[in-house]
Every structure is written in C-alpha cells, then in structure tokens.
C-alpha cells in the first residue's frame, strides 16, 4: 500500500534522512521506533509532503507521490496526524472535524462525526468546545478523529502516546486496534516500546536518519541487543 525507497531529506543544509526505505502492506500496523531526534517525524512529514524529500521514491497505492503537495497526497487517501496535534485552537470540536471532512474513497467505510463519537466517546460531550480548552488527551483524540474525517485508507500517526496518562495510552492502543480491525493501514512512530508492542505487527528502528532494523514485532522483542543499542536511553 505504501512504499518508500531511498529517501533523503534535508532541513536547510542538515542532512536528516539518509536512504530511508520502508513498506506497509494493506491492513498492517507498522511502527517506526527511535530515540528523540532520530528522524521519525521527519520520515512521516516527508511522506505526507510537508517536508519535501530531496531524493527518493514514495508510492502510495501504486501512485508516485514524492514531490507532490500535501493536499494532493492527502486526497489520495493518506491521513496524517501530527505529533504536536495542531488542533485549530479557536475552532470547536465540530468545526475541527469539518475541516478534515473529505468524501470517501470507496474502499473504507465512511467516517461521520457520529461514528467517530462512538470511537472517541469523550469528544461527544464537548462538541461545542474550543480546541484551546481541551486537555492533551482530548486533543490527541480530536486530532485523530479530524484526520479520520478525511476517510483515509492509510494513517500516519506521529507518536500518538506522547504525553498521555497511562490510562489514556491504553485507550489509544485500543483505538488503534479497533481501527486495524476496521481494515485501516497504519504507520506510526513511537518511543514507547510497550505501546508499540501492543499495537504493531512489524517494527522498524531508525537512528540518525537511517533505518537500522526491520522485522516483526516478535523478532524485535526477542532481540535484546538491538533494543539496547537503539532504544535504551
């Protein structure tokens, strides 16, 4: 469904991603693990086109998307959920969802506010509330719900568990599994190994802008050496 090859990305003069490659199959949940500053967010931003890659091929459902505008990529069915959440603070929950609304692509069931409020019951109670008056966890739910309103076929989730209380992290894991059951394809970045273990089928480890490990979640859990080298702080 999503395939990245030989990706190189720069911020100004700084070479951030070097030869990154990855593949996500239909219906799969793949996690991109790595320490702070390893290049996880940059990888996702390169895919969605917010930080255009200097080099490399990205194809999504058979279409080449490298170098396209973010809005074009999003319209092809790729949903992006940023790490900083980026809720429209002065818009209400309903309005935030409205901004994300796009008609369905045929393959996935249509997400409506009502269905999303089933998935995120907290949000249902604050439809008229401004984004700025929501807790971090609520904002995290809203940012995912907002992207789902675009009826994407594949989600790019940047550190969904970051800064959330343990209970909420569990809810988040359940939500992702629920989405997976619905047939959603997910590429997420994480630092929380337990969370990753709970949701992902396969794992990639990135460090200093290079992919250092690729395998199933089970292989990673069995490989103490790799985890110590790239994930322990």
């Amino acid at each position, binding site marked *: 469904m999503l395939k990245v090859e030989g990706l190189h990305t720069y911020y100004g003069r700084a070479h951030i991603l070097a030869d990154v490659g990855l593949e996500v199959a239909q219906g799969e949940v793949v996690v991109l693990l790595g320490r702070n500053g390893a290049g996880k967010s940059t990888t996702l931003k390169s895919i969605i086109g917010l930080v255009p890659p200097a080099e490399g091929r990205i194809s999504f459902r058979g279409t080449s998307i490298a170098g396209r505008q973010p809005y074009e990529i999003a319209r092809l069915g790729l949903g992006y959920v940023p790490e900083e959440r980026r809720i429209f*603070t002065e818009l209400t929950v309903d309005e935030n969802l409205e*901004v994300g609304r*796009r008609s369905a692509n045929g393959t996935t069931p249509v997400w409506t506010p009502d269905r999303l409020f089933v998935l995120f019951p907290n949000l249902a109670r604050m439809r008229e509330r401004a984004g700025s008056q929501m807790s971090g966890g609520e904002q995290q739910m809203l940012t995912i719900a907002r992207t789902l309103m675009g009826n994407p076929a594949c989600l790019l989730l940047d550190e969904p568990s970051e800064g959330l209380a343990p209970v909420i992290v569990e809810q988040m894991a359940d939500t992702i599994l629920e989405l997976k059951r619905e047939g959603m394809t997910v590429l997420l970045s994480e630092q929380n190994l337990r969370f990753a273990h709970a949701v992902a089928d396969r794992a990639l480890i990135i460090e*200093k802008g290079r992919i250092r490990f690729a395998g199933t979640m089970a292989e990673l859990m069995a490989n103490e050496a790799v985890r110590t080298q790239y994930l322990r702080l």
Partner: protein
Amino acid sequence: MDLILIQTLNGLASASSLFLVASGLSIIFGVTRVVNFAHGSFYMLGAYIAWSLVSRFGSASALGFWGGVLLAALLVGLVGLLIEIALLRRIYQAPELFQLLATFGVVLMVQDVALASWGPQDLLGPRAPGLRSFVSIFGNRFPTYELFLIVLGPIVLGALWLLFNKTRWGTLVRAATLDREMVGALGVNQRLLFTSVFFLGSCLAGLGGALQLPREAVNLHMDLSIIAEAFVVVVVGGLGSVTGAYLAAVLIGVMHAFGILIFPKITLVLVFLIMAVVLIVRPHGLMGRKPSLVQQGATMREPLLSPATREIKLLGAAALAVLAIAPLLLGNYGVSLLTELVILTLFAASLHFMMGPGGLASFGHAAYFGLGAYGAALAAKWLAAPMAAGLLFAPFLAGLAGVVFGWFCVRLSGVYLAMLTLAFAQIAWSVAFQWVELTGGDNGILGVWPAPWAAGKTTYYYLALVLCTALVLALRVAIFSPFGYALRAGRDSPVRAEAIGLNVTRINWLAFIIAAIAAGIAGGLYAYFKGSVFPTYMAISKSVDALLMVLLGGVQTVSGPIVGAFAFAWLQDWLVRGIAEYWRLVLGSAIVVLVLAFPQGLVGTALRWRGRSQDDDVPAEAVR
C-alpha cells in the same frame, strides 16, 4: 447636543467604507500573512471603475448606479484575483519585507494605469438614485446616503460573520488563519483558498471605493490616503479580526468627525491619540491576539554584519578620494547629481541603521527626512534663521518625531511595525499638506537658501560630503559599539537579550531616534540644496526609495546602503530622464520583477547559489 449627534452620524458614515477596506486587508492578512499594500489601489480602482460604469449605464436609474457599483466591486475582485495568481502566489514564502515591496510595486503600476485611463483631474461622481434626499434630524439636514452607509457597515459585518462562522468555506479560512500548513495536510487546496480569500478582500476594497462615488471626487491620491488609514484601523482593531476592524473604524471615523470641529487643521492628531491609547492598553489591538511564533513568515537569512576588512577600508578610502576630486572633473549638473547622491546615502544609511542591526524595517522613513527638510525650511521662513541654525533645527524636529513615533513603533515588530511607521509618515505628510498657513501646503516653502559662503554648488557639495561622510562613519562606529551589539542581540533573540538584562524596547527606541536624527540631517541638507521643500519629501514613495536603496545593497552589509544609494539614484535618474511620463509604471514593474526573480533578496539569493554548490555533500554525521 444635536451637533454631537450629527457629528457622530458623520463619523459612522465614513467608518463604513473605511471598514470595508480594512476588513478586506485584515482577512487577506489573516490567511495569507501578506500585508497587501495594493489594497488602497483596489479601493481607488473601485471608485474609478464605478465612475466609468455608472457614467455609461446612466446614473439616473437605480439599476445603472447600483449595478455599476456592484459590478465595479466584482471587477476589482477579479483584478485582485489576477494579481494573486500572477504575483503573490509566487512570493508567499518570501520575507515579509519583499512581499510588502512587491505589493508596493503594484501600487505604483496601478497609479500610472489610472493616470493613463482616467487622466489627472478629479472626477465628480453622481449622487445615488433614491438616496439623494436629506432627512431632518433635530432640525439638521442629514443626507440619506450617509444613513445608508451607516446601516451598511453593520450589515457587511454581519454578513462576514455568517460567512466565516456558518459556511464550510469560512471554517476552512479560519482554520487556515490558525495553521495553514495543517489545513493543507488535511487535503484542502490552500491555493484555491488563498485565491478566493484574496478575491473577497479585493471585492470589499472595490466596494468601499465605489460607494465613495457620491461622497467625494475620485482622484489619484485615494490609494495611499486610504491605505494609511486602513493600516491604522487594522493595527488598532487587531490584525486579522474583522470585528476589531469595525470597532476601530467606528472609533476612528467618529473621532475624525469630532476632530474636524475642534481642530480642523490637525484632525489626524486625534487619530494619533486614539492609536496611542489603544496600543498602550492593548499592544495587539482591540481584538487582536499575540501573533503566534510558529506562524511567522520567513525572516531574512543573511550573513551577520561584520566589520570592514582591510580591502573594503581601502576601497572606501579610494571612493572617498574619487568623490573629493570629482568636482574638478564634472560640470554643474554632475556636481548637483553627486550632492544629491551623497545626501541620499546618508538617508539610506540612517534607515539601514535601524533595519540592519535593529531589524526594524520602517516603511515611513521619509517622515524624518521630510521633517528635517521642513525643520530647516520653517526655521528659515519663520525665524529667518541662518543656515547653521536651520541645519540644527532639522535633526531636532526629526529627532522629536523619532522620540514620539518611535515610542509606539518599537513596541511592535515585523509587519505591524512596517504598517505603523507608514501610518506615521502619512500623518506627517498630511500635516505638511493640510496645514497651509504654516507649511504652504502643496506649494511648499521656497527660498531656503544656504549661507552665502556655502552658496556655490561646489562648496555646498563639499559641505554635504563632509557632513554625510562623517555621519555615515559615525553610524558605522555605532553599529560595532556595545550599543550596536546590544541592538543586534535584541533583533536576533529578544527573549535572550532581555534575559541578560538588556532593555530591548529602550535600545530599539534609541536606534529609532538616532536613525530619525540622521535622516533629519539628510533632509536639512537636502532642503538647502534644493532651495525649497514640498510635502512629497515625506511621501510614501520617498520612504520606499529609501527601502529600495537599502535592499538593493543588502540589509546585512554595512556598506550596502552606500552602494544601494548610488545604484538607486543612477537608476532613477535614468528612469526619469529616459521615460519621463510613466516612470512609476516602469519602476513598479521593475520592483515586481526583482522580487519575483530574487524572492530571497539579492544577497540571500547569491548566498543560496553559493551555498548550493558548497554543501551538496556534507555527510549527515558532520552536521549533527
């Protein structure tokens, strides 16, 4: 009592068209982050186009008049649309200053297009059919059309509110105002959104202009006079807030109306006072928010100022030697041209002083140049002061304005600062223009002659050369003094500078005053050089001249303004002599082309070219 009522109504009526223009400006800024200088030109075009359409359709019939007005607004919207697609779209990523400059290029072009299409004379518009009568309010006759305008303001405000809060388009626009990149990542085509917003804003400006038809004659000065007022409204109301724009327009409209009763000559002083009070109480305007840091437009990335190298010093000395012996080789015309150049260099260097190390880009620096010139001229005319005294009074007056205006300006930054400096310059200009008893108005002040000993062209040239060189060098010394370093620290990181105990606002204020004083001396020298002063010395185009000089040379090089002044003066001399009539059109196009070709500025572009060839293969590890 009824006088108060009538004046309030008058104020409300003028507030309406001011609101139309300012709200358009504000909406466009909110989404695109571009302060559209050409917005006043859209207003003027609205008035001219409406005049033509209404004349053609027949002003007697309601359909002819209102149809003409509405069609004019739509046509102006289309003009805005074309400009957005052809120009602005390409420079959304450019530094703010270049965006402002490019839209100013459009202002110049529209002025000449209007001149060519409608001629230089004022055009009187028809009265609105159906609204020609007067109503009696407490025994005063009050025009119905004015009442109509009063009602129109809140109606448009309400319509805009509905549009922004109750439609999907409005929701998208509000979201884009908060985080346009995220809106794009959610699949919204921002280009379309920006273009549609620009269309709406331009229509509003066009409508504002068209509706002026029954109230005032259409003329070629409408663009800059309204844009200065609109800037004030937007700054007072809070950038990006439509409701704020309405409140501010009403406040300023009403104050204006009362000002005319109290001090008819200097109504602008009242406007100024309101602005002062609002900005002291609410620095981001009535309904404004503190601009978020994430959203700020690209800033200039140019090398830091560094002291002159040995070669540059030698080069400077050589240039100075050439300037010193030049009169021996040149005729009268050449000496005159050089005198002007030397004075302009000081003017440019004074602007550079606040812009380069201080990061304070003024769009109204001509105010201080002009006030200097008027200082000298007024001293000569009213006090019969000798030249020496005149040359002292020049920087005094300019410095005084620097103290007062600067106090407000340094509280703001970026485009806010640019808008406010421009508004102050426009205020200074209109005082010179309107206070005929004191300044002679449009006719200026003549007979400002230098002292007999300096009357010879060559002598005066040397006088100017010595004074300007000394001052330019003094400014250089100041840039590399502890004060200059503090100024730069404040520019690069206000927070950090405050943390190490620098009072950034005070330092910037001082820089502003110094720049004003230096510009004032240049103005004083200019007055004695020309023998006369005119309000045009303070005109916005003069301020832009200074900006062009600094930008041509490069903001972050100390010798930049000197090179820039020479390049600019040569260019202008060539333009004015070569194509006397439509030089604005040519200059405007040149500015637009320059910005399009070098959206990062000349120096920035050169750096990028150099950078690209050098850094292609820096390995990732080396950068970390």
